[in-house]
């Protein structure tokens, strides 16, 4: 029996186990939506913006480990999904975007809603396809999923012209694919793994520096085994949170620009860095020439380009983190002797001293302004037993969540790391909630970033996705304001948000619930109230406007040189509040 391109599309997606598609229809994808409409195996979630669809696919993929799928139309549909594709490319998220395209005879004609989808998406996808013949459609979809999921995961775009989705052919779905130019290396070099084991046995001050690759590879157990067996402290990147339990005694928390004091000191003074699935991003290394001056570096990563890109590596191991660690642990188990706790005591004494010296802290006066850290900390305490999935936007609230929300499990953390996309959090949380209807999904956002995708409230309400959104409302782009305070003498160029909508009313306008939190004494109650509601909630948390996120390593600074609190001159300046001409009518700022 012959099937149309659209029917082939739906059949192929079923074979790939797709349960949910996020998207918005348009002229050239109507046929595909029409076929989707007439079946029940795949749920279609209509979003309110294609960017929302892309981030939902990302949230879905990060939470489940399965590729997320977005379906959008040509032209503006495609350009709107570029940000999620770029975001997914930076953070290695397997999503597949299917874009409609004008009919093949019209391509290149500046047809209505035409865009060069392949050209637009080339630098922000792992691979992209234009389907020019309906006979190629099934195998293309198979290849798209294969490329997105395997090796270092990433986004793939498949561009389907309208005539291809209408044309008919026999449907045969390939069992497997092989692409001659694409053969990811999974097995690490045995010799290099042996070298790594020897280096670990010799090291006096080793540290594990783990990244998002640990989560993609499912290597949490192996990391934990290695850390516990050899008593190695664990530093996590922003992307790795949840890969190792945040409250584990060996965890030093997040490292990098806003990492903990102990995480940054420990890596700086270590003599052996074991990097697993991390890429030595500039937010982690700080000044490259002074990164870990005394350390030998072992780097385990599936992507050879990540190795020796920024940092000289002594023992490079290209391979899948899980498999490499399994082998490494096996060698270590066979050779290790002596009490590792005893052996590592001097190193741990030093680490514990750092830990005690500058722990993460905030001062919450009982009747003062609400500190954002306090709300996040309470949210963590009150939900930890429910193993929530936590999404964030980008900025101060993101860093505070990374610091205070001690995630216990992998795939519970949805954040935009590499691209730093404001507006990511809310749709990503919806994507995760669509995958796990019963789980508690939280989104912590800022008043600036939530406005970048607030339209998805409609998607949340219509699809009954009861995400709990906590908006740290300070009437600022807070991180920008912090940089301006620290490096631009307090000139708040375009960081002050004069008008912020009433988020309670906004939520209610869409049919969601809205709550406002203004007093410290109400924090626990309002959190409980929000959690008890069986629908999407916006909680508008009025926080201290001038709270800054510390520790902080200034861009290009050195990891052991952290700013730990507001410099005195900054405190003086802030006492004066926001300059007069920037004051809002309701006096929120001067209160």
């Amino acid at each position: 029996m012959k099937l149309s391109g659209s029917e082939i599309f739906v059949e192929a997606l079923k074979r790939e186990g797709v349960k949910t598609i996020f998207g918005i229809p348009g002229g050239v994808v109507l046929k595909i939506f029409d076929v989707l409409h007439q079946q029940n195996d795949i749920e279609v979630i209509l979003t309110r913006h294609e960017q929302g669809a892309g981030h939902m696919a990302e949230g879905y993929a990060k939470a489940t480990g399965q590729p997320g799928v977005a379906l959008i139309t040509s032209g503006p549909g495609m350009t709107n999904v570029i940000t999620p594709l770029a975001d997914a490319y930076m953070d290695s998220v397997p999503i597949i975007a299917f874009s409609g395209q004008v009919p093949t005879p019209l391509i290149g004609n500046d047809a209505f809603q035409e865009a060069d989808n392949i050209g637009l998406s080339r630098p922000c996808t792992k691979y992209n396809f234009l389907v020019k013949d309906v006979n190629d459609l099934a195998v293309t979809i198979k290849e798209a999923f294969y490329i997105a999921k395997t090796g270092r995961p990433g986004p793939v775009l498949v561009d389907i012209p309208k005539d291809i989705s209408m044309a008919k052919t026999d449907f045969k779905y390939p069992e497997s694919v092989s692409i001659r130019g694409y053969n990811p290396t999974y097995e690490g070099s045995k010799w290099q793994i042996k070298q790594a084991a020897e280096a670990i046995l010799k090291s006096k001050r080793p540290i594990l520096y783990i990244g998002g690759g640990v989560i993609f590879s499912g290597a949490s157990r192996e990391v934990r085994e290695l850390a516990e067996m050899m008593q190695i402290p664990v530093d996590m990147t922003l992307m790795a949170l949840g890969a190792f339990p945040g409250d584990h005694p060996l965890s030093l928390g997040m490292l990098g620009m806003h990492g903990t004091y102990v995480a940054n000191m420990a890596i700086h003074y270590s003599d052996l860095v074991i990097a697993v699935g991390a890429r030595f991003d500039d937010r982690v290394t700080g000044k490259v020439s002074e990164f870990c001056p005394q350390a030998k570096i072992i780097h385990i990563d599936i992507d050879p380009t990540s190795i020796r890109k920024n940092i000289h590596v002594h023992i490079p191991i290209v391979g899948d983190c899980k498999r490499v660690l399994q082998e490494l642990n096996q060698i270590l188990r066979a050779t290790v002797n002596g009490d590792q706790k005893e052996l590592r005591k001097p190193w741990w004494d030093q680490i514990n001293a750092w830990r005690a010296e500058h722990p993460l802290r905030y001062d919450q006066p009982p009747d003062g302004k609400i500190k954002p850290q306090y709300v996040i900390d309470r949210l963590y305490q009150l939900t930890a037993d429910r193993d929530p999935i936590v999404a964030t936007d980008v900025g101060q609230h993101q860093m505070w969540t990374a610091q205070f929300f001690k995630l216990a499990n992998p795939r519970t953390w949805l954040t935009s790391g590499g691209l730093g996309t404001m507006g990511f959090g809310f749709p990503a949380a919806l994507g995760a909630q669509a995958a796990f209807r019963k789980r508690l999904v939280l989104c912590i956002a800022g008043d600036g970033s939530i406005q970048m995708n607030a339209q998805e409230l409609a998607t949340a309400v219509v699809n009954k996705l009861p995400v709990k959104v906590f908006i740290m409302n300070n009437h600022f782009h807070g991180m920008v304001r912090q940089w301006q305070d620290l490096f631009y003498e307090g000139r708040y160029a375009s960081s002050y948000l004069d008008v912020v909508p009433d988020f309670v009313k906004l939520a209610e306008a869409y049919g969601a619930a809205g709550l406002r939190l203004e007093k410290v004494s109400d924090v626990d109650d309002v959190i409980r109230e929000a959690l008890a509601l069986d629908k999407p909630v916006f909680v508008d948390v009025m926080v201290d406007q001038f709270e800054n996120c510390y520790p902080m390593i200034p861009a290009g600074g050195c990891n052991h040189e952290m700013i730990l609190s507001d410099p005195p001159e900054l405190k003086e300046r802030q006492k004066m509040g926001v300059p007069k001409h920037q004051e809002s009518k309701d006096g929120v700022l001067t209160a």
Partner: protein
Amino acid sequence: MAQHDTEHIINITIENKFGALSRVAGLFSGRGFNIESLSVAPTLDPTVSMMTIVTKGDDWIIEQIIKQLNKVIDVIKVVDISESDFVERETALIKVHTRPEDRAEALRIADIFRANVVDSSPTSYTIEVTGDVRKVQAIINLLQPLGIKELVRTGRIAIMREPIRTGAATRSLAKAN
């Protein structure tokens, strides 16, 4: 990690399909790598093209270029030709403006470089020259005073020399001597 830039000739075996060239070109521009010349044409297998890129960089950058090229899914194989013994060639078509008194000189120069005259008009010769980059540059330098109207170069292509077995072959040579 301060090293000096050296020139590298990289041969890339790549799928001969839509967009493959732009993936490689985009990689170079997107990551700020430098392309001195690029030439591409199908191989014996029509599904595969051979691309020759001449680039410059220190060891650190060249390592990244090769790794990044390997990562491109359409790329099948990457060889840094300049790591080994190789032969390189480039062809140039040079249209030289010739006044009557220069015509003999132009032909003499072409002759010295074993270049061919492939087109001629009362006021010009078009000269085809093939050689390594120094030879092509040398003839251009000599023809320039006469007046070059147009210059088209293919970009460089290179191929590895077949290794000569030092065993039996050298021994028989020695015997002959």
